[in-house]
């Protein structure tokens, strides 16, 4: 066991006893990891902040259920994943209600302070395109892609975090990549347009 692992386990042990300073160390160590997952899942900075807060609050109250033989980060990301998926499902219900309202005859106003999609793309092209691609995926597929690409998790680690089987994860990644490839082919990136060719390998 490395020194950092021993320190981590010590923080966890103290936090389990209600030591807020020890828990603060855990928060400082993993805020970026949890926030990135929430951001990639939800696609919105404000919602990602809320989800990150909720993840740590839940983690604090369920620390006793954490098995120290497993990775703490995976356990934490598992909580974040479940919460983010719940948020997306709730949002989908809300969006559905909005669609129904619009179908009843109201028109959607496009007057907004939000920057145009083109401006967003120009500002942070790569990140925005990736996020737009991710947003096309269902939550279960999106989380598999996020854990695979942003956390470099193996099939087994993703399955463990999402409490499912390796074959289910392989299947989700397989379908997710195909869906993304379809979306990506339809909307090629600006840099590819500028270079005037689509990559053929």
């Amino acid at each position, binding site marked *: 066991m490395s020194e950092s692992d021993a320190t981590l386990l010590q923080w966890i042990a103290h936090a389990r006893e209600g030591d807020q300073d020890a828990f603060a160390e855990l928060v400082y160590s993993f805020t*970026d990891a949890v*926030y*990135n997952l929430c951001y990639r899942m939800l696609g919105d900075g404000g919602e990602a902040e809320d989800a990150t*807060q909720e993840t740590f609050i839940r983690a604090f109250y369920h620390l006793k259920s954490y098995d120290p033989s497993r990775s703490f980060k995976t356990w934490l990301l598992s909580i974040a994943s479940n919460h983010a998926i719940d948020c997306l499902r709730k949002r989908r219900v809300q969006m559905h209600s909005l669609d129904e309202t619009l179908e009843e005859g109201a028109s959607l106003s496009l007057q907004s302070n939000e920057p145009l999609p083109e401006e967003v793309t120009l500002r942070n092209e790569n990140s925005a395109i*990736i996020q737009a691609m991710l947003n096309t995926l269902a939550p279960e597929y999106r989380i598999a892609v996020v854990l695979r*690409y942003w956390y470099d998790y193996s099939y087994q680690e993703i399955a463990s975090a999402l409490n499912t089987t390796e074959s289910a994860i392989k299947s989700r990644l397989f379908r997710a*990549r195909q869906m993304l*490839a379809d979306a990506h*082919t339809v909307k090629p990136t600006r840099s590819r347009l500028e270079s005037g060719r689509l990559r053929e390998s």
Partner: protein
Amino acid sequence: MSDTLRQWMQESLDGVLSEELRHALFTSLQKDEQAAREYARLEDVDRVLASAPHMRAPRHLAVTIMARLAQTIEAQASLQELPREVRDAVMASLSLVMLATLPLMMSGAWLLLRTADPTLLAHVLARTVGLMRVVVAGQLHILDEVEAHLHDNPQLAAALMALLPAMLEGLLEAVEDANKDDEA
């Protein structure tokens, strides 16, 4: 394109395909133009995703989390400060209040639905509203007293809560007396 070939493509992108199978994959791709295009598309997606940056949390977020946690713990602690017997007494008193209020509400509803005499209805409504005002004012007064004594003398607070049903009972008796006077 076979399922095996698709599986090899995915495993190749995930870096879990053996060297031997990887060789077999590329041999197949050289022979199958459609499969080669599909692999190129998937490879493209893989490259884009692999280049994605990590989003860093705003600087204030960790502090915000700890502040919210402290608030949550404090709120829970203040709830747990109430002795069990006080919490039980509060629950019992509130249940009694509900039970005592129920006949009043039902009789009011019955009168509203049944009466055909507007004068009688106005009279009943005025009396009911007046009674409810007295009840609410009395309850608020008792609850203020309960709140004031909750921490220093929880037993007294529980006893005060128990006064609520007694107060309602007294009011109902007063109403009955008033009705008898009206009839006389």
